[in-house]
């Protein structure tokens, strides 16, 4: 029996889909059999981020409605034999499926895969409720912004109310220089408010933009710091103890001098 994880945030644009793609690929990289589920019906993205958009024939809604068998809708990744995607439908909306249908689907997938990773839509309505229905564990993604942390707090409350105890937190897009300068919320500030287990921190990395647009998850790139962060997170999900990444950017000589004069 595999684990069913939902990746959620409340707020949009904090990196749920990127996180899903990278954790899923990270776990596949370690040899686990993984399926990623895009539940953002009508606004699907996970297929694009994974570079699998042009392979879609059937989707989640087709499976739930019985238009096809589950196996037919699963898209095998082009890099890993052991990684699959169940895409969302694009021309339908969130009400196309129900929470009980999601529970049944997750139970079926759980038989077959080590990890079932659910990419949740933004918001706290129908789509969110569907996404968390079949999950046994939750990962909340936030960024060091007051609004994102506020929404994460709301989501953690909703998850706990729905019986998903002890969600784990990923803080995404940290800019160490801004934190050092006191211009950005620090990890400590965020943990003070949210008080849940920290699963990992991901530095802001220009490479993520490139990799997302190319459909090649950053976790596959050895040089990317964000990729390293996602590899660590994947290992922690598998139960390994890995210390948090040191995300301090290397400061050059001139930068140090500028910093000395207070110009960052």
């Amino acid at each position, binding site marked *: 029996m595999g684990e069913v994880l939902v990746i959620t945030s409340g707020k949009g644009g904090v990196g749920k889909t990127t996180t899903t793609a990278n954790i899923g690929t990270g776990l596949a990289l370690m040899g686990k059999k993984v399926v990623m589920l895009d539940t953002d019906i*009508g*606004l*699907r993205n996970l297929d*694009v981020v994974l570079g699998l*958009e*042009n*392979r*879609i*024939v059937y989707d989640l809604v087709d499976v739930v409605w019985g238009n096809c068998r589950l196996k037919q809708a699963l898209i095998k990744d*082009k890099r890993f034999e052991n990684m699959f995607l169940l895409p969302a439908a*694009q*021309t339908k909306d969130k009400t196309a499926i129900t929470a009980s249908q999601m529970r049944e689907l997750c139970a079926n997938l759980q038989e077959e895969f080590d990890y079932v990773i659910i990419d949740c839509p933004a918001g706290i309505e129908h789509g969110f409720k569907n996404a968390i229905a079949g999950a046994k564990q939750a990962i909340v993604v936030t960024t060091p912004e007051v609004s994102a942390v506020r929404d994460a707090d709301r989501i953690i409350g909703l998850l706990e109310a729905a019986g998903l105890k002890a969600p784990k937190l990923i803080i995404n897009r940290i800019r160490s220089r801004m934190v050092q300068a006191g211009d950005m919320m620090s990890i400590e500030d965020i943990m003070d408010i949210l008080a849940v287990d920290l699963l990992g921190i991901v530095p802001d990395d220009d490479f993520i933009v490139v990799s997302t647009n*190319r*459909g090649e998850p950053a976790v596959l790139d050895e040089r990317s710091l964000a990729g390293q962060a996602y590899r660590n997170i994947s290992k922690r999900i598998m139960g390994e103890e890995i210390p948090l990444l040191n995300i301090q950017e290397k400061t050059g000589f001139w930068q140090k001098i500028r910093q000395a004069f207070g110009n960052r």
Partner: protein
Amino acid sequence: MEMALALDDLKDIQKEKTLLVQKTVRSGQCIRFEGNVVVLGDVNPGAEIAAAGHVAVFGALRGLVHAGAKGDKEAVIIALSLEPTQLRIADHITRPPDGGNWEASSFPEIAHIQDNMVVIDRYLPSK
């Protein structure tokens, strides 16, 4: 030598109804029609068109188009710029090669079934 398929070779489309879509079809929008579909605009990624007959796009085709959706293998897809996510004709499904290094051609193209395969040719209105 480059093959070309001309207007005369197309299955007679005048017997079927044709839907004229006078806008760009955007992501999440879906057009289904029991006949031919002509789009005066683009078909963006994430948009779907399914027609029982032919589909012609007077613009860029970047989304998913299914011609001959009821099984007509003689149906064709024509676009001024053919750069689809996926093309389907009858029960055939094709997608562009991986890598994304291909470039859309600067001339109109036509996709049709030949020898049980979807092939793409330069579209010439007359021979």
